[in-house]
């Protein structure tokens, strides 16, 4: 199993988590944008970071979850896993011409399985700014008293 996406049986996945439009978190970086996710679990923090990433490109409240994709990868380093998760989503989004608004991921040891749902770009969807990729800059995944935090800078 590598970094490339592959389809998994739907029964292995839990239901997509809804994002709260407008609840995305960002932090400062001179040229690019820092995205941050948080949640009660590591997985929720990853899902929240994914929503923050895609909210740079579109208003997620206007994106209909009509089509789903799934992915999986193997990664022992949880910080690198965040970067790979975001980059696999970005790769799938660009490859299939989709914009995603809902995200889900599960971890089983070093195996990560996740997915996203969204729709093809519509003419009437207000465009934001394209995200080229997630970087290792200011990359951090940690558990604090209020839950899990996951963040990195994305290149736009």
């Amino acid at each position, binding site marked *: 199993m590598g970094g490339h996406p592959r389809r998994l049986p739907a029964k292995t996945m839990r239901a997509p988590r809804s994002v709260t439009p407008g609840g995305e978190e960002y932090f*400062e970086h*001179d040229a690019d944008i*820092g995205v941050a996710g948080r949640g009660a679990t590591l997985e929720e923090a990853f899902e929240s970071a994914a929503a923050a990433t895609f909210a740079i490109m579109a208003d997620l409240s206007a994106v209909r979850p009509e089509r789903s994709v799934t992915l999986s990868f193997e990664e022992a380093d949880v910080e*690198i896993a965040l970067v790979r998760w975001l980059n696999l989503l970005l*790769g799938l989004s*660009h490859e299939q011409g989709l914009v995603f608004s809902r995200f889900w991921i599960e971890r089983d040891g070093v195996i990560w399985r996740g997915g996203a749902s969204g729709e093809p770009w519509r003419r009437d969807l207000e465009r*934001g*700014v*394209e995200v080229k990729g997630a970087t*290792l800059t200011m990359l951090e995944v940690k558990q604090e008293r209020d839950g899990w935090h996951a963040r990195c800078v994305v290149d736009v």
Partner: protein
Amino acid sequence: MDLTKLKRIDEWSWTVTPAPGEARGEVKLYGSRELLATMDDKVLEQITNVARLPGLVGPAMTMPDAHWGYGFPIGGVAAFDPEQGGIISAGGVGFDISCGIRCLRTNLQLADVAGELPSLARELSEKIPAGVGEEGDIKLAPEALDEVLTAGARWAVEHGYGSADDLEFIEEGGRVPGPVPANVSALAKKRQRGEMGTLGSGNHYLEVQVVDSIHDEAAAQAYGLREGQLLVSIHCGSRGLGHQIGTDYLVSLAKAATRLNLHLPDRELACAPINTPEGQQYLGAMNAAINCALANRQILTHLARRCFTRLMPRAKLETLFDVSHNTCKREQHVVEGKKRLLYVHRKGATRAFGPGHPAVPERYRAVGQPVVIGGSMGTGSWILAGTAESENRAFSSASHGAGRAMSRHQALKQWRGRELVDQLAAQGILIRTRSMRGVAEEAPGAYKDVDLVAEATERAGLARRVAFLRPKVCVKG
């Protein structure tokens, strides 16, 4: 930036003295006191980290437009010798491999065609695919894409996008040697399927500009520039393919660095010695992405020509120059009197060969390579010429843009896209975009003063000013 950490060499260059026992190469920062004072301290931290990488030759440098990037600062230049364990770094090239500017000179004077600009703006915005989610008309299967990655702009010309005359004025004749399409992942190739001939988003643009003033008559004459003339500048790169190569290799080289005991001060520097399988693999993929970018700008050149000639049949658009500013290139340089083959990283920095350099097209060889400093959509851009002095000072490198003075996040809080579009229209600058967020993030006020950057570039001996261009139409992604 805290200037007390710096030691002034002269009015336009600065260094940092290593701490006792600190093992690293030299660091040099170009720019005025005013420009350096506005830079984030992270610029200094990042370029100091670059100076710790193995095989560095000469100083690790920042150009006057430098700002905080990832791994390398944007505006960073560093050369490495493969025979001394020198590295190649994905973080030293960036995600948008071979992002650069294609500059076209027209045979049109603003005074003669000013009334056509609104129609031209509409035509360009309709025919140039721009922005997130937009695809071009060219759909390439992976096998056909491999031909693009091998032949670069030459592929585009052979397929009817532009003419052979364009190739002479593109770096390396429109095709860099050493591409290895097999080193490019399947996902990268799939991402590029609909993205040939697209502009992209963020700070990318297609701009119609007018030559506002000439500052070096001889170079302007060689470049075919005159006051009042319209030019077109296309700023974009290798699109999804380059982004995915950056993504793939950033992680794999970060892991390789650990395996190779490189002890990186920042894992974003993700690199491998050039003379290792990992280094060679990235090099082959990166060269393929450079060719992809050169082909992309060639196709966009063709699309822009069609827009002009549809409205103004007598219009002629010739390639002035095509220069990349996110690359690592194998070049010969003279170091301490000896010729050496080095791998020069320029991340957000433009190559600037001086007069007489054999890589400069014959038409320009007496005055030096054209260098473009792209400014914001509300201020303007500069064309400069490479200098012989730059060879010694910065491995023939110069600034690439105005450089951000404010983060995108801050800009979004300060400006609204619609208001900016209206304000610029009142100043005679037509903005066409589908992303008002993008306009706000790219607000002219979010950038450094491009005139200060161009002046510092000249005073530091990196390139000399030739012409100042004012924007008239800007298609933003």
